[in-house]
């Protein structure tokens, strides 16, 4: 009687172990292996295996085995009819009764029954959840060499139910993860399509101006480089790159003759051209972009820090940071590419332009970030030389450019420091 009580206490403790293993194991196979150990350890069994049932393609996949050397099978076919039969019975199958109960091989199939008997399995417990077979656990060889008692069977039934629920829950989790992966894939595809559409759109914008072909794409790339140097998040970097690609979309509503005028345009034409940021905003605002600021980047890319820009004459921090980045990228590309009425500036002149216009037209932190990114390329730090490639071969002479960049960065940082000190 005392021994029976001790066994029950041990089984009860094992049941607690089982709950912990099912709840805490993140890895499916690890969970199954641990639960098999718990059942074997609860009753002192020398061998056992756990199989997961897969309805499609109707097979039992043996996930964990213990005490069977290398003889445990990997999988066995198991048709849906047999699975249903096991669920209806939902009891334990005693394989030592195969001689006296001819129905047993029918339930498990002759081949599987023979395999399990050869592995000295004596008891099989179907794992049934919500009336469906999720697997089975096969056990054998009590270390005491005794037969399974009624109490042993109760313990096995209870544990089999818990293991079945554990397998079922892991399956649900796997299904959720699979769907999440599918959604991620779909989202990435959609982002790819969005990016390609944006690039195609940028190309269409630039087609209108025969002298600025590739301008929008270059502005997008410069903006991305600056944002990365500023330490923005990947989402922000992608947003500002798209803003760069689309910043001139409003030019689609401006007369082609004005855009392509081979001379300096007059005030009236200039006013017409200056409509393009607001027009761009009108075009982009109804679209649900991943980055909601993209329409504002188009609208405010001609605003200036000193408030003398257009269309609204915003000042300093009134201008969204991404629009400041696009503004510099846009101006830098304008300075470093040929236009209908002028040749591009030499790089030292560009540096001078940046020096004199930082704090007036351009935000100081944005100019510093761009100069730093370019300096890194000049020093050969990044493998990919993106800015120098966009500028074309021979435009940048490292030994000439390096001191200019270093000097400008130091000067702008000193200015920013002094401004902060005065503030």
């Amino acid at each position, binding site marked *: 009687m005392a021994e029976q009580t001790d066994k029950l206490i*041990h089984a009860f*403790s094992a049941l607690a*172990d089982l709950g912990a*293993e099912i709840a805490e194991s993140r890895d499916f196979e690890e969970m199954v292996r641990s639960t098999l*150990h718990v059942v074997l*350890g609860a009753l002192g*069994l020398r061998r056992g295996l756990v199989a997961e049932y897969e309805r499609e393609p109707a097979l039992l996949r043996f996930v964990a085995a213990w005490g069977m050397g290398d003889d445990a099978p990997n999988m066995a076919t198991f048709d849906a009819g047999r699975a249903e039969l096991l669920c209806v019975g939902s009891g334990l199958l005693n394989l030592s009764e195969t001689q006296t109960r001819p129905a047993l091989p029918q339930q498990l199939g002759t081949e599987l029954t023979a395999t399990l008997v050869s592995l000295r399995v004596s008891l099989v417990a179907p794992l049934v959840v919500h009336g469906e077979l999720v697997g089975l656990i096969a056990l054998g060889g*009590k*270390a005491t060499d005794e037969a399974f008692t009624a109490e042993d069977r109760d313990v096995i039934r209870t544990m089999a139910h818990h293991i079945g629920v554990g397998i079922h829950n892991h399956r649900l989790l796997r299904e959720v993860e699979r769907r999440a992966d599918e959604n991620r894939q779909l989202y990435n595809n959609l982002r790819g399509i969005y990016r390609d559409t944006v690039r195609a759109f940028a190309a269409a914008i630039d087609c209108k101006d025969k002298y600025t072909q590739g301008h929008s794409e270059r502005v997008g790339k410069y903006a991305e480089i600056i944002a990365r140097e500023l330490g923005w998040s990947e989402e922000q970097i992608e947003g500002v790159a798209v803003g760069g690609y689309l910043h001139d979309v409003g030019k689609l509503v401006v007369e082609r003759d004005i855009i392509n005028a081979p001379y300096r345009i007059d005030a009236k034409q200039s006013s017409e051209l200056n409509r393009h940021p607001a027009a761009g905003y009108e075009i982009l605002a109804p679209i649900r972009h991943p980055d909601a600021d993209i329409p504002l980047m188009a609208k405010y890319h001609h605003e200036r820090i000193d408030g003398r820009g257009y269309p609204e004459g915003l000042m300093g921090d009134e201008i969204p940071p991404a629009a400041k980045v696009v503004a510099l990228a846009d101006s830098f590309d304008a300075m470093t590419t040929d236009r209908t009425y002028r040749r591009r500036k030499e790089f030292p002149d560009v540096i001078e332009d940046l020096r004199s216009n930082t704090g007036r037209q351009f935000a100081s932190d944005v100019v510093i970030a761009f100069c730093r990114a370019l300096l890194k390329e000049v020093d050969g730090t990044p493998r990919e030389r993106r800015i120098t490639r966009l500028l074309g071969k021979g435009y940048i002479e490292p030994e000439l450019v390096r001191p200019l960049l270093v000097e400008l960065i130091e000067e702008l940082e000193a200015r920013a420091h002094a401004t902060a000190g005065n503030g």
Partner: protein
Amino acid sequence: MGEAPAGSPVRSERTGDVAVVYAGDYLNKLSGERIERVCRERLREGCRALVVDFNETSMVNSIGVSILLGVIDAAERTSARLVFAGASGQAAQLFQLLGLTRHVTLAPDKQTALKLLSEFTDAGAANH
């Protein structure tokens, strides 16, 4: 006495064909798997006898029992002798209750276990 920190090696020593493996104070999945790994390694290396020393073991859970049954199985498959030494309290009671004691030799401590094994080896040599 606390449980050995995760990942800490299992203490074991080898004299000739005999290996002694020391179980910690709590034999569960983590410590059990480490002990099992060492036992299997020693058997692969050619040890003909294993002593598992439970002198410091105060608690064995269900997974620990199952893993020890695996060690018994591994020893039987290589015809090696297995002695459980120094088991007392809950561990000894559990080994008795679940039938592990039918498949291993029990010894009150490591020294007695080693003596038993040397007598066995001597007897085996004499029979030859």
